[in-house]
């Protein structure tokens, strides 16, 4: 009896071992790339802060009672969203049908066949922003459809710039010169010149990419080769490092993400701030929480040697390979990225659209005065490196750039190390 029990335990453990052995490959998966089947589906997205997403889903459900969409809200943090989606794909679970991907994840999800190829000819992409469309393809094939876009803006203190009779800067050098004058003003006592996002997280990659592009360089060139050992990339990084060394960027900004940056700007501590459109309405709040309401305006990001280039933010919709009812999913994506829906989400949730006509809509421009500047920003924006192992690539960038701006490494040393790391990461793929 006793030995029997023990044997059954050992048998169980052995079978566990066998399961472990077979579970990993995913060779003959349930995945299917065929887009067919209709019925209920799910939509996995980040937290719906404004209710605009829920509204869209409800509209869809009203007209498609047999093909209802259930909203699955993932944690607010982008890394956690990606982790849940990757886990879901690794376990080949059909729980998520439509995935709301940050556009830098497109290549990874496509190359791993976690999402299915979409039929190009069923969409008319001519009204879409060209820069956003770059993030939807992988090796020339379409895997996702851009649903939201985002671009960086230079927020500046209109009131202070007016006092020194200055126009918003188009280069960092001009920005420094304006600051030198503005900070002499009594009204600007204790203020700092500029801050972006420099903490060690995705925002640092965004800001570094902008510096490199603004100096005419590239992180990864059009052939997919890393080029951060170029003089242009060095110029970009040196500008960031010099900003900290000279005090143009306040010391505290090395811990800034979007939100502390916003607090510094609306608290009247910064003349210039690089941030996303979300800051506009909060900085204009008239409930006393903002000291700069009505005193600021936005401009496209300044460049370093050439014109300013924003990193392209935004999210795309894709269909999980492991889910059922992919035909419904495709219909839902068409519906969700339609002009009408994008307009509604812009009105209700201030979510920037991927269709360029909406930026020129006079009614919307009255509601969102930054829209015109944002369009300029997004139109000239560059996506971050579109590589399969983006998670590794961005970590390498953050490691080396952070070491440089915190003074632990000389910029050229950091970029040489980064070049080697990126070559290794990209060559593997």
């Amino acid at each position, binding site marked *: *009896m*006793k030995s029997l*029990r*023990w044997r059954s*335990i050992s048998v*169980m*453990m052995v079978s*566990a*071992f066998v*399961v*472990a*052995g077979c*579970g*990993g*490959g*995913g*060779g003959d998966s349930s995945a299917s790339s065929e887009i067919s089947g209709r019925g209920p589906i799910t939509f996995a997205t980040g937290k719906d802060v404004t209710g605009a997403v829920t509204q869209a889903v409800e509209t869809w459900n009203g007209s498609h009672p047999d093909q209802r969409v259930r909203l699955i809200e993932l944690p607010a943090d982008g*890394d956690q969203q*990606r*982790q849940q989606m*990757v886990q879901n794909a*690794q376990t080949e679970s059909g729980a998520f049908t439509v995935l709301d991907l940050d556009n830098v994840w497109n290549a990874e999800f*496509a*190359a*791993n*066949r976690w999402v299915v190829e979409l039929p190009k000819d069923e969409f008319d992409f001519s009204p879409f922003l060209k820069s956003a469309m770059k993030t939807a393809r*992988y*090796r020339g094939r379409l895997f996702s459809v851009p649903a939201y876009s985002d671009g960086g803006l230079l927020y500046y203190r209109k009131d202070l710039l007016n006092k020194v009779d200055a126009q918003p800067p188009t280069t960092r050098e001009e920005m420094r010169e304006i600051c030198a004058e503005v900070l002499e003003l009594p009204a600007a006592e204790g203020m700092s010149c500029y801050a972006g996002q420099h*903490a*060690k*997280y995705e925002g640092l990659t965004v800001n570094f990419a902008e510096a490199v592009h603004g100096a005419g360089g590239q992180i990864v060139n059009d052939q997919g080769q890393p080029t951060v050992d170029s003089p242009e990339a060095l110029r970009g990084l040196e500008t960031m490092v010099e900003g900290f060394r000279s005090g143009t960027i306040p*010391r*505290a900004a*090395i*811990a800034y993400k979007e939100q*502390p940056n916003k*607090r510094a700007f609306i608290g009247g501590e910064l003349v210039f701030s690089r941030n996303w459109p979300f800051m506009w309405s909060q900085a204009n709040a008239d409930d006393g929480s903002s000291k700069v309401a009505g005193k600021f305006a936005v401009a496209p990001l300044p460049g370093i040697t050439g014109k300013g280039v924003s990193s392209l933010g935004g999210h795309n919709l894709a269909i999980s390979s492991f889910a059922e009812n992919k035909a419904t999913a495709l219909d839902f994506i068409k519906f969700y990225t339609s002009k009408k829906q994008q307009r509604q989400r812009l009105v209700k949730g201030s979510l920037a659209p991927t269709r360029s006509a909406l930026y020129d809509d006079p009614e919307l421009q009255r509601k969102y005065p930054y829209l015109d500047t944002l369009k300029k920003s997004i139109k000239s924006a560059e996506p971050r490196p579109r590589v*399969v*192992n983006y*998670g*590794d690539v961005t*970590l390498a960038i*953050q*490691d080396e750039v952070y070491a440089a701006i*915190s003074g632990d490494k000389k910029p050229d040393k950091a970029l040489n190390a980064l070049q080697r790391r990126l070559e*290794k990461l990209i060559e*593997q*793929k």
Partner: protein
Amino acid sequence: MTTDTPTSTEVDSGNTTPGSPRRRRSGSVTGTGRLASALVSPTLLVLAVVVMYPIIAALYQSLFVSGQRLDAQGFVVEGRQFVGLGTYADILFGPAAERFWNAFWNTTFFTAVTVTLEAVLGMAMALVMHQAFRGRGLVRASVLVPWAIPTAVSALLWRWIFAPDGVANAILDQQVLWSSQAIASKIAVITAEVWKTAPFVGLLVLAGLQVISREVHEAATVDGAGAWRRFWHITLPLVKPALVVAVLFRMLDALRMFDLPFILIGQQKDSVETLSMLAFSEATNVHYGPAAAYATLLFAYVALIAFVFVKLLGADVIGEARSQVPKNRGARFRRGKGSAR
């Protein structure tokens, strides 16, 4: 696995057999054995599914790499390659070594510092609580509060306290960047961890203190022993078994520290990245082989520490001493075989 010594097994099983001196029939032994396996197997079964299976899966997984190559169309080549111990070699000596050893030292540093602080603070708290007659209920209840708050929530709380314009900087009247300066972020993690667990260690030591009979102390007082000497020569040796076990269990927990630095400071920060965080980060970047290898190495490290602790300090984890002398509670302290003294 680590706490067993051959001699003690014999001593123990001989000693705890109910009624062994007057065992009547051999039938009762079989009956006992059958009962024992019936009682023990559910636990083993559950642990086999939820722990042994993942451990074996991880061990097996760590011998493979996958997703390293792309085919002509740019798709990741499916399936995986057997690399044997190659992943381990990469981690220990190869390209991944820098990150691994950094995480290894962080883990070791956090464990050493937090557990030391917890032991000292816990001891001090226990002594105070032992003396206190007024406010006893209050102090005991408040001691349990930090421990009852979910780690995920207390990490948020400390993140809030250590925010750039948070209350910690206001009290210190400094602009410390807790989330980005190497030393400051370590201090933040240590503070939060010690806050959460030191009071609990205090309770455990208090439990040990309360079994020391008052007479022992009074006798020593009459003999003219000063407070310090009484603490050093009477109190400390008597609470040592409780303290050693508490410290061991705290160490095992601290070595696997994850949520606190993850939420308080953030992921992929060199200054606070622990081995658990490293394993997690690799898993989220779909490097399952390396992730499994990190988990296995951490497991081995934890087991090694536990083993050394049991051997060197004679931590009475499986309670042999207490089962041998159940009635004489004052004599619960047993010198371990390899005891330092």
